């Protein structure tokens, strides 16, 4: 099958409403969004806390957060597999080869990106914001909400990058989810499988969905961000 034929076949699959294909898309979106929703609050809080406070070992915390960005997802998958397997400490949860397992994986995969980007955004913010808030009598909580509001473009960028990482990762979802048809098959694990079987049409179709999803999600988040300032100022 040529690439052109495979692509034509892919569009035919997409527009014919192939149930198996759309179920795969649904599993991917659902697990990514839930994983991201669970990871965002603790990651943002932790990123903020590391950025704003001086404490022993702070540099090590920053270093580890940045290192975690380059952790291969298969390694995260392996560790989770061991934790979640029947004899592992989290075995009783019975999350292995389930969507809950994939969500746990997305949580762990997304966390470092969200944390490191939030940390960088808060660190880069003008310290006068926090100082002014404190000088005007804001509580610690209000200082935090004020600072995160001022750093919102950076925090949004963290969420966009986090989504990109969790929707596109394949290693962890494959190992922890198990790529079970109709259960834990995600866009990326399906593409890997279909390609290995020589079924390029479905792989391409899913690839198109993945790219479209990335465009839509990034577009939506950009709209949410509002009009960010350009670095060179405005005319």
């Amino acid at each position: 099958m040529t690439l052109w034929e495979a692509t034509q076949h892919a569009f035919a699959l997409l527009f014919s409403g192939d149930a198996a294909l759309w179920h795969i898309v649904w599993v991917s979106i659902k697990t990514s969004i839930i994983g991201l929703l669970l990871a965002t609050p603790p990651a943002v809080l932790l990123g903020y806390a590391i950025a704003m406070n001086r404490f022993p070992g702070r540099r090590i915390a920053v270093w580890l957060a940045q290192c975690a960005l380059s952790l291969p997802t298969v390694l995260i998958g392996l560790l989770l597999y061991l934790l979640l397997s029947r004899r592992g400490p989290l075995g009783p949860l019975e999350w292995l080869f389930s969507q809950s397992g994939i969500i746990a994986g997305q949580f762990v995969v997304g966390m470092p990106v969200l944390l490191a980007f939030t940390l960088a955004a808060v660190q880069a913010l003008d310290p006068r914001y926090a100082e002014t808030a404190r000088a005007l009598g804001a509580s610690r909580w209000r200082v935090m909400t004020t600072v995160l509001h001022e750093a919102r473009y950076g925090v949004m960028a963290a969420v966009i990058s986090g989504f990109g990482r969790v929707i596109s990762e394949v290693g962890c979802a494959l190992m922890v989810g198990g790529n079970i048809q109709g259960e834990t098959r995600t866009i990326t694990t399906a593409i890997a499988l279909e390609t290995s079987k020589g079924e390029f049409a479905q792989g391409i179709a899913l690839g198109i969905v993945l790219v479209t999803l990335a465009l839509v999600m990034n577009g939506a988040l950009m709209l949410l961000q509002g009009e960010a300032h350009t670095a060179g100022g405005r005319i």
Partner: protein
Amino acid sequence: MSALLTVRGLRKQHGERLLFAIDEFTLDAASAYVLTGANGVGKSTLLRILGGLEAAQVDSVTFDGKPFNLQPYPKALRTAIVYVHQHPIMFSTSVWHNIAYGLLARGESKAVVKKTVEEAMCWAGVDYLRDTEPARLSGGEKQRVALARARVLQPRLLLLDEPTANLDGSAREGVIALIPTLIEQGSTVVMACHDRDLIGLPGVQRLKLKDGRLEHRPHRTDDAAP
């Protein structure tokens, strides 16, 4: 005149270098001071320490007759003392919300916040900026909004870090004109500035930070007295 703030044995070090060691100084209630000194002598640092934004070693602090520690910075001082940056930064909300910020943080009722903020906008002459994006204000406008933002809290002590630096002409006069009314409302005002642009307000006392020490010079009318 009663003492508002007395500080004894204030030392600030940057690493190995001693920035200043001040034996004692007192600020009176409802009085105005200019704090002068060369660049880098520690004027801003001194104000930031008093405003609870920077740490320092201190033997004793008495505010309104009561003793306090500076670390951790006590809530009573946080409510009574407000520090304003040399280049105030505006929260990217609205001019109105910037001025309301401290009142909202104190949990004041909506009616009180609205009334106080409206008054302060008129006082600072920034009413026309109501719908302007805070980031687009000029230096003088930002300084006036920052003064309004501090004034609504009715601080006992207001610390202004070079309020007229980099302002000239009417912008500078606009800011200076606001300061006497702050003193009239019972606030003590300390303004850091350079000798050359010493703010010529009547009755202002001078504090000079030089060689790590603080000299107090009463205002000119005292000098002229027999």
